[in-house]
């Protein structure tokens, strides 16, 4: 994020390096979470006997449980650390993330969740490949699943890195890598031992902790302003030095016509991305029926909606009570605003309650990151094993037992990738990074999901063109955007090879994905399998023959 905030750096001493006894408290709290969740994981692992248990938690969760687990999967470091930071630094413009991330759930609720639950089995590709040629479609969908998940993983690891900087001091490169490696190892243990059952319980516990932690901070913030939102906003505007501009759209995105298009591009990616996120889609398989899938989305909308409303208090609270200067001194893109706010509402640096709240919120943030990373790893390793290995490489000539073994090996490899990414994670805002994963998901996955479910004449070539076209265009545009080079916050801030002006590719790559799906279909000479589409349609709407 190119936040227009360069005033801070020289005036404020580094607020990092929390006193060591407070560090002990944070580590203890986090250790309790890790040990408790690992115990549950081992218990869940004992109950995991076949592939349905491993991939789909035995389809035995209730709508409410899955609603909590979806919330746990969805409220990532981006939502908690990223949005709070974005609002704290650029005011109202940061709030777009909260709105887009929530409204997006309606696409999943109305068009995707129930038919997907009825017609698929373990992965997103099950539905896409239902009536098309298995191998090309599964190869494409498996590839895009893994790419989307890695973008998402990167955002989580950036959040972890920012937390470590806050807690251990900005210079602690060695300890930072050690902690990132530990997070990666615990996450791999969750996935390989507990499968979907264990991971789902981890999400549920984390969702409850995150909601309670956020609620506590929100109450403390509002209490400081006598429960008057207007005075909270007023204080945030005053402290920001921007006056009422801070409360209006445009501080970050209203600068010129490019940044205005950038805002629309981001808005599109947010609202269309959710229903194409593989790690969210596989959650619908953990419940027994489409009706339960609908209930779980409704619970998720309620829980996530309340959480995003509280980001107003977190973000503007951090702007008012901590201030942009102190936040950017620790993390330039604001990822540490929420824990810093916790310390401030507890009584400030040096006070006992400040330290305790900082410890609690930091531990919750670590738990959040750990759980989301586990969900991503499970979804991508499942897709590798079920789509790429079993159905493409082995052409279906394998057993489900072997498939699960391959999934576990894949989880270890993806875990290693996550650890390496985390060690070299950049200084970008976690919400902005996750928005890239949303853009890739909306461009590569959503068109094919919708065409598969609702277009009788859709063909294999349409699916592969759409998935690869959306995927490649989104990724290439990111590589040549100011996110990767040519800006101070870029991944390679030292060089400049960018030619695409927008930081989010959605406005180009999403329409491209839809157009290519249509073009590939009308130019294809293959006969559409109408009989198979009729079967898909009936199964999707009635639940007959559902797994």
């Amino acid at each position, binding site marked *: 994020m190119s936040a227009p905030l360069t005033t801070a750096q020289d005036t404020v001493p580094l607020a990092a390096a929390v006193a060591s006894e407070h560090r002990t408290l944070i580590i203890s709290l986090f250790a309790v979470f890790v040990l408790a969740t690992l115990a549950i994981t081992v218990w869940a692992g004992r109950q995991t006997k076949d592939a349905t248990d491993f991939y789909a938690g035995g389809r035995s969760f209730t709508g409410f449980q899955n609603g909590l687990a979806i919330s746990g999967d969805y409220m990532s470091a981006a939502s908690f650390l990223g949005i709070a930071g974005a609002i704290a630094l650029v005011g109202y413009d940061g709030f777009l993330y909260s709105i887009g991330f929530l409204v997006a759930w309606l696409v999943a609720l109305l068009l995707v969740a129930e038919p997907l639950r009825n017609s698929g089995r373990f992965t997103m590709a099950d539905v896409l490949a239902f009536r098309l040629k*298995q191998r090309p479609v599964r190869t494409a969908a498996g590839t895009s699943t893994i790419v989307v998940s890695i973008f998402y993983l990167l955002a989580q690891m950036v959040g972890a890195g920012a937390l470590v900087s806050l807690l251990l001091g900005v210079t602690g490169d060695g300890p930072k890598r050690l902690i990132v490696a530990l997070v990666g190892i615990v996450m791999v243990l969750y996935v390989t031992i507990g499968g979907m059952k264990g991971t789902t319980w981890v999400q549920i516990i984390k969702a409850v902790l995150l909601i309670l932690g956020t609620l506590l901070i929100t109450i403390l913030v509002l209490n400081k302003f006598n429960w008057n*939102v207007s005075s909270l906003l007023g204080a945030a505007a005053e402290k920001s030095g921007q006056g009422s501009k801070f409360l209006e759209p445009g501080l970050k995105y209203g600068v010129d016509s490019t940044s205005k298009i950038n805002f629309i591009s981001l808005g599109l990616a947010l609202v269309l991305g959710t229903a194409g996120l593989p790690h969210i889609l596989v959650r619908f398989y953990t419940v027994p029926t489409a*009706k339960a899938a609908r209930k779980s989305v409704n619970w998720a909308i309620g829980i996530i*909606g309340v959480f995003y409303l509280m980001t107003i208090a977190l973000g503007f609270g951090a702007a008012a009570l901590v201030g942009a200067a102190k936040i950017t001194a620790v993390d330039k893109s604001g990822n540490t605003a929420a824990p810093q706010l916790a310390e401030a509402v507890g009584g400030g640096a040096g006070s006992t309650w400040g330290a305790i709240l900082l410890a609690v919120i930091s531990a919750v943030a670590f738990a959040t990151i750990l759980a989301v990373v586990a969900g991503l790893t499970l979804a991508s390793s499942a897709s590798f094993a079920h789509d790429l290995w079993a159905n493409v490489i082995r052409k279906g000539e394998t057993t489900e037992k072997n498939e699960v073994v391959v999934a576990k090996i894949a989880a270890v490899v993806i875990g290693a990738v996550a650890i390496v990414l985390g060690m070299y994670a950049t200084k970008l805002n976690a919400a902005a990074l996750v928005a890239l994963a949303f853009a890739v998901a909306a461009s590569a996955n959503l068109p094919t999901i919708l065409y598969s479910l609702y277009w009788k004449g859709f063909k294999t070539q349409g699916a592969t063109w759409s998935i690869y076209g959306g995927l490649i265009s989104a990724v290439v545009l990111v590589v040549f955007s100011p996110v990767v080079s040519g800006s101070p916050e870029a991944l390679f801030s030292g060089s400049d090879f960018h030619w695409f002006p927008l930081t989010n590719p959605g406005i180009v790559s999403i329409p491209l994905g839809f157009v290519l799906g249509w073009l590939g279909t009308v130019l294809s000479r293959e006969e559409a399998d109408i009989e198979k589409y*009729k079967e898909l349609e009936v199964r999707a709407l009635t639940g*007959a023959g559902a797994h």
Partner: protein
Amino acid sequence: MDSAPPSSTSSTSSPPTPASYSEVEASTEFGQLRRSYRNFTFPVTVAFIAWYLLYVVLSSYADSFMGTKIVGNINVAFVLGLAQFVTTFLIAWLYSRYANAKLDPGAAALKSRLEEAE
């Protein structure tokens, strides 16, 4: 049982044959179910996406309107943002009510017809 991914052939418990799927697909009851489903979800999807994009475009291009203060420091932008939350909750609730009343009974009847077809 995993060689052919989720097709009727990979199911274990007496799967309905493809013929019965196309019979059901051609039935008036199924046509009605599909119409009921699409008559709700398609227009509502268009509506909420248009409403959301209107909000995004206003945020980009109508700064002074969005900055108009209503009460204290609460401006139009803030209220419209909260309105997006309200409409999202409302649509989710309306859809569930509609699905419970209009979609689930028809779907269940067709499902049992298919699963007893053999």
